[in-house]
């Protein structure tokens, strides 16, 4: 337990460290048990009403209702805990029995070994131009779902902004002084690591269609790099690189590009028109149609979301 809490002296870890350093005073008598908070336990009517002086009828009625409510809550909470345990057990048993009846994992004749996965594996490279079949699946065959997923990230970030954003623009004086302590070890390590992490993230994003990885994983790596930088050097220096404006512009640009590019592709696909997007030679960096660009978009959105969550939870602003 950290020493930030008021009662840190009572905590087990503090007592242990006191014991190790020999500071511990051994009490003569065992510590008095904490008395249960009386307020929550009263269900006896006389005791309850004796706490109040009742002046009129309305007050009496309200008090009576409060008393009944408290009694109800006490009984109901007991019943609820028993019921929830029973229901939880029943659901566990039902689901376990169900699992026993499901197709065996990895069996060759399972229903999920069918034409769908067959075509992904056999024709995936030829039809999408992506060496990484997973990228081909999520960004070409099922690109609509992935657009939905990137919108989930976008909307989640908006939600956190709604919840945690401080409305005052002026940063509070010495906010960074409280939050941020310069740490020479972290700074040196970050100086060394952040460029490597960012470059690796960019590599994973750009090679999403050629090797394992892609927008989601690469974006997460880049986001981690940004978070490390912010932790090492503080938000003030981070803002020179990445402010709320940058965040808005990047998210807007990436999602808009994704939306428009994919709308074009959907529209031509559905109407059986010729699409001008070339597939390129599989294996080259500039290949596989839109997948590379969509990976970049997804990666940017993921990186911004990761860093945005961190900044919002840490200080209420991006």
């Amino acid at each position: 337990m950290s020493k930030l809490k008021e009662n840190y002296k009572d905590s087990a870890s503090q007592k242990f460290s006191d014991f190790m350093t020999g500071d511990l005073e051994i009490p003569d008598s065992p510590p008095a048990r904490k008395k249960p908070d009386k307020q929550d336990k009263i269900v006896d009517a006389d005791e309850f009403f004796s706490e109040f002086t009742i002046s009129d009828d309305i007050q009496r009625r309200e008090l009576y209702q409060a008393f009944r409510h408290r009694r109800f809550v006490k009984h109901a909470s007991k019943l609820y805990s028993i019921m929830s345990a029973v229901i939880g057990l029943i659901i566990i048993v039902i689901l376990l029995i169900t699992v026993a009846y499901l197709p065996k994992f990895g069996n060759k004749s399972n229903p999920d070994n069918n034409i769908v996965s067959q075509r992904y594996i056999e024709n995936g490279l030829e039809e999408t131009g992506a060496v990484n079949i997973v990228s081909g699946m999520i960004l070409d065959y099922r690109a609509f779902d992935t657009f939905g997923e990137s919108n989930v990230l976008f909307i989640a970030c908006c939600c956190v902004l709604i919840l945690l954003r401080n409305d005052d623009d002026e940063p509070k004086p010495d906010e960074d002084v409280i939050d941020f302590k310069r740490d020479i070890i972290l700074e040196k390590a970050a100086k060394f690591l952040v460029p490597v992490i960012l470059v690796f993230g960019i590599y994973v994003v750009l090679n999403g269609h050629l090797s394992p990885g892609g927008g989601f994983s690469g974006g997460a790596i880049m986001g981690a790099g940004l978070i490390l930088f912010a932790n090492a050097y503080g938000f003030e220096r981070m803002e020179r690189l990445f402010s709320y404006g940058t965040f808005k512009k990047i998210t807007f640009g990436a999602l808009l590009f994704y939306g428009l590019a994919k709308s074009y592709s959907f529209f031509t696909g559905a109407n059986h028109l010729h699409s001008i997007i070339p597939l390129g030679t599989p294996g080259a960096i500039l290949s596989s149609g839109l997948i590379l660009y969509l990976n970049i978009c997804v990666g940017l959105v993921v990186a911004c979301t990761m860093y945005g969550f961190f900044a919002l939870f840490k200080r209420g602003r991006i």
Partner: protein
Amino acid sequence: MEFLRNMPFFCIILSMVSAVIISIMSDKAARVFSLIVIGAVGIMSSLTLIYVVSIGESYTYYMGHFPAPWGNEIRVGILEAMTATLFSIVMFASVLGGMKRVFIDVAPKKRNFYYIMVDLLLAALLAMIYTNDLFTGYVFIEIMTISACALIMIKDNGHCLVAAAKYMIMSLIGSGLILLGLSMLYDLTGHLLMSNIKEAIELNEASGLYQLPLTVTVGVLCVGIAIKSALFPFHSWLPDAYGYSTATSSALLSSLISKGYIFLLIKIMYRVIGMDVIRETRIGNVFFVFGVVGMIMGSVRAIAQTDVRQMIAYSSVAQIGYIYMGMGLGTELGMLAAIFHIFAHSSAKSMMFISADGLSYVSDDSKEFDDLGGSAIKNPIAGITFTVGACSMIGIPMLAGFIAKVCFADAAINASTIKLVIVMLALAFSTLLNAVYFMRAIISVYRPIKEEDQMKIYPRNPKFIVACLIFIGLNIYLGTNAQPILDLILEGIGMFA
């Protein structure tokens, strides 16, 4: 004419891209822009409806270059197009009518986020209505859950945060169950496309394979969606979420979000599992029982409320019960009644939330019945709208709710005797209870005004009046012109199978 095929795709992409564009807009531009988008979606959906009716059959539409089991696909039929049209009209009027309240309730820097959420909600609704692929459905369930949560919590006070937390927990349990069901279904069939799953299930049925897991899957999916749409025992998140959030959010939550999930459930019943298997699992009887209990319990709780918004919220529990009861009858007429009630309820309930907000606007922002006395006289258009909505919910002829109740009774006559008796008794009792609490509400808002209040003049809000007129028109249209709509719904259900 052939070009109209593309309209559903344009609707979905337009609402998704517009949400992204709104993120860099000022709040005034965001308001106007999102209204334009919703209006455009409404127009395009009605064009789709005209097109589908004219070609007389449903069609599928590739989302990409690849045919169905490999790529994504949407499917357009009469029922889908109708639902999309009605939902966008209701959404347009709700956003328009509650715009001023959103302006008051939401902090200045968060206002354009509200419209991002509204647009993404519209996109999720449309995608869930049109999708032919279960996993696409799941992705958009997620978007819908998050945006609904944001719509509740964006009004920054304690009640809304607690309500949003409650909603989040319950809704995520629902999402988890749905995901569990989908993965089991994928394991059993090897497909995510609705029509392919149905084929595989029919094959499995014929060979007697995987009976038990399929039953559990159906159960898990149905419970998940029931939690998300607040069927009776899972309604604990509902009163707070509908009662405290800003008026537009309540209207959207009650009339669109829960209905979107129910629409997906109907689609799963018809197009994924198949009605034969559904009847074998007898899940319909479960829906029926909980629906009937919900009808009564929701109304009883509504009577006990002293807050107008909470009362409308509990009334929603009862109305959701009606819909599940219709689905539980297990006949095509029952489903017809349930779908018509989806339409009737979404047009009437959103109207009540918006007009109740108009009433509390002239009563110092109080929602208690004691303070609302005379508010309908101070704000006549809100009073009339509230009355029309309440009458529609009670089931006064010429309004949408009446047709829905007649349909339920009609469907019950064709079901088994025991269900007939239960439905008739429940309908009668529930209508009586509806009348009790709605009449009390109407009477209390039309109480004579106190003298010192008579001189106060409240500024007219033209947006609110337009929204009210749209709602009244929609309800009267559904109530007086029901036969062609019912025929179209029947035709749409035929296209599902």
